[in-house]
């Protein structure tokens, strides 16, 4: 009986160990990830006499400011960097952040991630259609998009992030945006 209990405990322990190992395998390896953008929109405060027009104090997921596209506007600010920032050529990008939509009348609203490849190959243009995936309004909602990348990118290729509202609907806010590049 004792032997059985011991064997049983051993089995449970080894199962837990195996599970732990598997979970460790799933954990994020920091060397495989590089942050291309991490913006809570607080960094402008105090540095420039006039804040950029795409910042708003009306809503914020963290801190005081958020990125704002007003009612009837098509574009706001654009973020720009290069893949050089990472020490490797990523195989995918992951955009994450928070959005606050004032109503269901926001119409077509795209968070656009573009990789410009200087005519060496076709640019990569991907959009997260916020109006299609967020169905709760007047509250902060998480957003995420994964973009699979081809293998022939180069460090000098540029990454542009913007919000494009072709139908110029109701106002919307974004905050705590991050763009991670994965090896």
């Amino acid at each position, binding site marked *: 009986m004792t032997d059985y209990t011991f064997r049983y405990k051993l089995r449970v322990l080894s199962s837990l160990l195996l599970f732990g190992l598997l979970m460790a395998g799933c954990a994020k390896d920091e060397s495989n990830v590089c942050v291309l953008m991490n913006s809570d929109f607080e960094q402008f405060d105090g540095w420039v006499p006039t804040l950029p027009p795409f910042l708003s104090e009306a809503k914020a997921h963290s801190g005081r400011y958020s990125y704002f596209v007003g009612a009837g506007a098509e574009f706001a600010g654009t973020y720009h960097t290069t893949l050089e920032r990472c020490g490797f050529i990523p195989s995918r990008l992951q955009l994450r952040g928070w959005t606050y939509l004032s109503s269901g009348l926001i119409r077509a609203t795209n968070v656009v991630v573009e990789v410009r490849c200087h005519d060496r190959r076709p640019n990569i243009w991907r959009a997260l259609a916020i109006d*299609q995936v967020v169905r709760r309004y007047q509250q902060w909602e*998480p957003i995420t*998009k994964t973009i699979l990348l081809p293998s022939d990118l180069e460090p000098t290729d540029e990454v542009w992030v913007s919000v494009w509202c072709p139908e110029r609907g109701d106002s919307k806010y974004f905050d705590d945006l991050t763009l991670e590049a994965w090896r």
Partner: protein
Amino acid sequence: MISFSSPSLFIRRYPILGVVALHVLLLAALTSVLYCFGVIHYLPDSENIARWDVYWYALIRENGYSFSTTSSSTAAFFPLLPYFWRFTHLDALGMGLLNFGIFLAAFAWLAHQLRLPARWALLLLSTPALLFMVIPYTEALFFLFSTLLLMGLHRGRLSWWMLGLVGCGLTRSASTMFVPALLFTTLLWAAQPGQARRALQWGGLGLLSNGIAVGTVMFIQWYQMDEPFAFYKAQQFWGHHLQAVHYPFVTPSGINMLWLDALALWVGLASIGVCTWLAFRWLRRRHQPLPAVPPAVVFALGYCVCITLFILSHQGGSLWNFGRYVLTTPFFVVLVWYLSTQPAWPRRFYVYLLLATLALWQVFGVYTLEFDNFTRSQALWYFALLTAYLFLYLTLRQLRWKGEVVMGLYVFNLVMQLHLLECFIQYFVVQ
């Protein structure tokens, strides 16, 4: 002359009327309860129901047609609904209610002709996409005339068939897709022993009816705008032009309509599979007798195939309106009815179907993190629920707890129908 000594005798003869009345009662009860408890916040009225395409129909009703070579215009819409609306002198809500009445009457007639069991009738009446039946859209008239043409085929009434084709042709541009369906139906029908002459006669008169309808629309548009092909030329401003398919598939209607568009895609691809199999059997008809599929079912399959091919070739990977074009038609009702009459399928057949269905969901990027705003586990859960929903319909005739399952699906569907209607009347995108 038929006389009924009491209402109960009448109901016994036409039990479907009792089912439709029960549905209306349950729908009214659920709507009033959800509204009273604040679960839904808006009910349709003349202003809030006049959204989206209602604007265009109202324009035609008031001013007739106009055509622009540079932007969207009323020319893309067919004339029967707006002129019928003008004739009734009703406001938007009145027209919506009339549409709902037309739909209920057509559905009752269809279900009566098909001898559709009460459970199936209730389930089909609750299809979430049927919210468009209470809006001044063409869905109700299209349902009425499509029912007429299908029942013409089913009951062998040539006049119903022709009238249905003319009515559909005047109601909606989708009827231009009847031609391949009609040819395919004629081909298969003519291959049945002793049916060649009849099939060719029906096929020819069907083409003639379709031609009359399209010709009438062209004449009206030429008369008003000097452009007989205006309805065709205006399509490009609604994003309908020949283009490559983009992956992953999306729907601008959003996550709460995507599952219905995905189901329509499933129905469309299943129809393509069945039609391919029928075509193959037609080619081998000298070696093996052709399966005796009723012409109404073949036509319904043909319609779904044409709509699927059109959407895949003209919307570039967007399933915009797919659910509306498939699930709100009597073609879908006929397909579900035919499925309900089939003998039980073996378990392995369901396993193959399940595997094919799970593979299909990858067109939405489910397994490769391309289903936007969802983690992989969330996406898998979304499509697992959708698969379960689909397979409840597919296996229903073989399930032990049919009544319970139908009741669950019915209530869920009605809640979805009311949710989508509320989205529509708030001017959110649902189509």
